[in-house]
């Protein structure tokens, strides 16, 4: 247990620094946008109406969706201006969080400014104040406590929402939460939650102190609050000031196999003398674009994913042809090098409980189609939107009674407990064998092949030392070993970290 804590705590300073930097920048940017806008809005009810309506609308978009939206948006912008804008990491996270922080700041600032006693305004005019003097001497000081309360709310929201920025490749305390949730390492989840909550609470208290100082006109409180925030900011961002040149960034999507393979690649690169950093929990679409843009140097994807998502192909081809086509396409379109296949497949596999398979004699997807109207379908969050599901539906007359989405961690227990009757499992997942689940055969070949393949960014493609370090992994991993490694991380008892599983796998490589 204490080992888990040490492992979690070791990652905290760097993640905390990134978290603080991101939230603070977003808050600052939101203030820079909102305060002038609020001054304008306070003078024009129409502007106030429009600005507040837009800010409220943004607020109704879930934080995760907002982050996801910025990804294609920034790609588009980057394409328009001829590249150079990164849609990965800090920038999309900053944009989304800034938008998220707008509403409380804007609403409170407008309320504060329009709520200034009309008599004070009339006196200011009667005394001959200019508009600027009136703002500086009367309106701003009288609205300040309300504005400060809005900033305080925004700060707490932003710090909370920043945990979601992990999904677009921006490190934050959310890295601990996402990784822990995926591998069922509750210590990591707890550490992530505790530190982000502690950060939010302390920032809230300090901003509260400043708010009180302004409200009661006690400069000492406001001064003390500002000083402590400045000190906290300096301390928190210190780790990120350290030099970081030529660090290899290894991408991973949000499940155990990806974490393990990333660490396997990382360990080989470290052996070759590279410093490495991991970006875990990236979305399928995000990670490929990040690789093409050079924000990620290497990651493992699956042939079927590139085939359907990136290449938009809907036809079925033999494995070898598919790999050839992919290698040509990635190289020609994005300069991305497909180094090769690792040697195992991780495809979508429909799995059922052994007793159902026995009693209802289920062996193939045709058998599943026969009983599908009585079955509830459990999937990961993206499967129902994926082309593979359409391909399956086009090939087999499957119509489920109901469908539910899960984080992969919870999908297997849901099948075991009877909450759902069939799941879209991953064929290399150790929990299939561990639960004796039966995988139904896709005899008509509806689901394309999902060979695990290593992809390199354009920049690293030509780097000999880099390619040599990873090359021995090609064709060296069997599906049995991958399942075993996955199960080490996913199982409840005697859990291993992705790194430990990666080291185990490293010993099992086929020569």
């Amino acid at each position: 247990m204490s080992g888990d804590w040490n492992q979690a705590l070791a990652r905290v300073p760097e993640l905390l620094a990134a978290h603080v930097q991101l939230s603070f920048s977003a808050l600052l940017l939101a203030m820079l946008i909102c305060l002038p806008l609020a001054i304008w809005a306070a003078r024009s009810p129409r502007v106030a109406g429009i600005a507040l309506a837009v800010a409220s609308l943004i607020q109704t978009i879930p934080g995760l969706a907002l982050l996801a939206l910025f990804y294609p948006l920034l790609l588009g912008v980057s394409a328009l201006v001829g590249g150079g804008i990164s849609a990965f990491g800090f920038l999309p996270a900053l944009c989304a969080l800034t938008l998220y922080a707008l509403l409380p700041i804007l609403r409170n600032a407008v309320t504060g400014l329009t709520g200034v006693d009309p008599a004070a305004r009339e006196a200011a005019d009667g005394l001959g104040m200019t508009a600027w003097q009136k703002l500086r001497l009367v309106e701003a000081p009288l609205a300040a406590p309300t504005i400060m309360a809005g900033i305080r709310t925004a700060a707490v929201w932003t710090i909370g929402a920043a945990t979601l920025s992990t999904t677009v490749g921006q490190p934050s305390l959310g890295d601990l939460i996402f990784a822990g949730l995926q591998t069922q390492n509750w210590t990591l989840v707890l550490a992530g939650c505790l530190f982000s909550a502690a950060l939010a609470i302390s920032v809230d208290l300090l901003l509260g102190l400043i708010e009180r100082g302004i409200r009661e006109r006690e400069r000492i409180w406001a001064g003390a609050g500002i000083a402590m925030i400045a000190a906290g900011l300096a301390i928190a961002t210190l780790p990120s000031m350290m030099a970081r040149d030529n660090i290899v960034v290894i991408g991973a999507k949000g499940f155990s196999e990806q974490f393990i393979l990333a660490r396997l690649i990382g360990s080989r690169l470290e052996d070759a003398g590279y410093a490495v950093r991991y970006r875990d929990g990236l979305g399928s679409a995000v990670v490929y674009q990040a690789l093409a843009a050079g924000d990620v140097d290497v990651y493992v994807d699956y042939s079927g994913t590139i085939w359907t998502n990136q290449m938009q192909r809907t036809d079925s081809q033999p494995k070898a042809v598919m790999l050839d086509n992919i290698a040509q396409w990635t190289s020609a379109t994005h300069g991305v090098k497909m180094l090769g296949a690792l040697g195992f497949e991780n495809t979508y596999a429909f799995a059922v409980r052994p007793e159902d398979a026995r009693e209802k004699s289920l062996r193939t997807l045709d058998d599943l189609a026969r009983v599908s109207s009585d079955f509830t379908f459990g999937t990961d969050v993206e499967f129902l939107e994926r082309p593979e599901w359409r391909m399956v539906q086009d090939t087999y007359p499957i119509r489920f009674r109901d469908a539910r989405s899960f984080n992969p961690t919870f999908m297997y227990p849901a099948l075991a407990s009877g909450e759902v009757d069939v799941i879209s499992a991953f064929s290399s997942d150790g929990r299939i064998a561990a639960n004796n689940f039966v995988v139904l055969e896709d005899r008509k070949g509806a689901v394309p092949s999902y060979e695990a393949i290593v992809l390199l960014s354009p920049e690293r493609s030509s780097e000999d030392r880099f390619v040599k370090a990873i090359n021995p992994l090609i064709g060296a991993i069997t599906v049995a070993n991958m399942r075993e490694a996955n199960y080490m991380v996913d199982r409840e008892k005697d859990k291993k970290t992705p790194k430990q599983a990666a080291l185990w796998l490293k010993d099992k490589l086929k020569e």
Partner: protein
Amino acid sequence: MPVSGPSISLQQLSRHYGTVRAVDSVSLDIAAGTLVALVGLSGSGKSTLLKMINRLVEPTSGTIRIGDEAVDSIDPHILRRRIGYVFQNIGLFPHMSISRNIAIGLELAGEKEGRDERVAELLDLVELPQDMASRMPDQLSGGQQQRVGVARALATRPGLMLMDEPFGALDPVTRDNLTDQYKALHDRLGLTTIIVTHDMAEALYLADRVLVMEGGQIKADATPAELLSGNVGEEAEALVSIPRAQAAHLIGLGKPA
């Protein structure tokens, strides 16, 4: 008695709000050093007329001159710094001390020298104790706050004072006191003052000259003595008859049965 206040001249001054003529072609000359009361019912246009003089309200047509200068030839905030303005809701700045409230006009004018002395002098002038200077507005009573309002308006030594129902929200005793004291100040400083009130008794007591407004026009223009003697029109008579009847009633009550 030094006269430092300016004369004021209004020429065919109008202010329309849509089809409503709040002020309807008013022409008027006010001699320097006069204390003029503008009396009328709510909506008669008296406040609108007053606020056009310091350009808090812009006229639809017509001209206003203060001394020789047309007010629309001066930047509004420069104009207003030369005119004292006191109104019913006082509008002290709640986040500033009394002393800073009083000196705010000097602060706007960029006068740094002698602010404290001027504040002390003004506190004396409006008969407030010196230790008020460091207090905050919410620690003062309504009457004390309006004394500060008057002091603030006088800080930059304006010649012209515009007062919009200045004592309307105060209790009768405080109000009577302040009315008396202001009249004395007006005379002592040689100001030109225009005071808007709906209270004819106050106007009769305080002013050198009473203007009765109705429907945006001036219906009567007379000294208090002339008003009381009658024959100045029915609008004025309607307003004057109230204090007159009250006074008669009070006198009647006081007589032994």
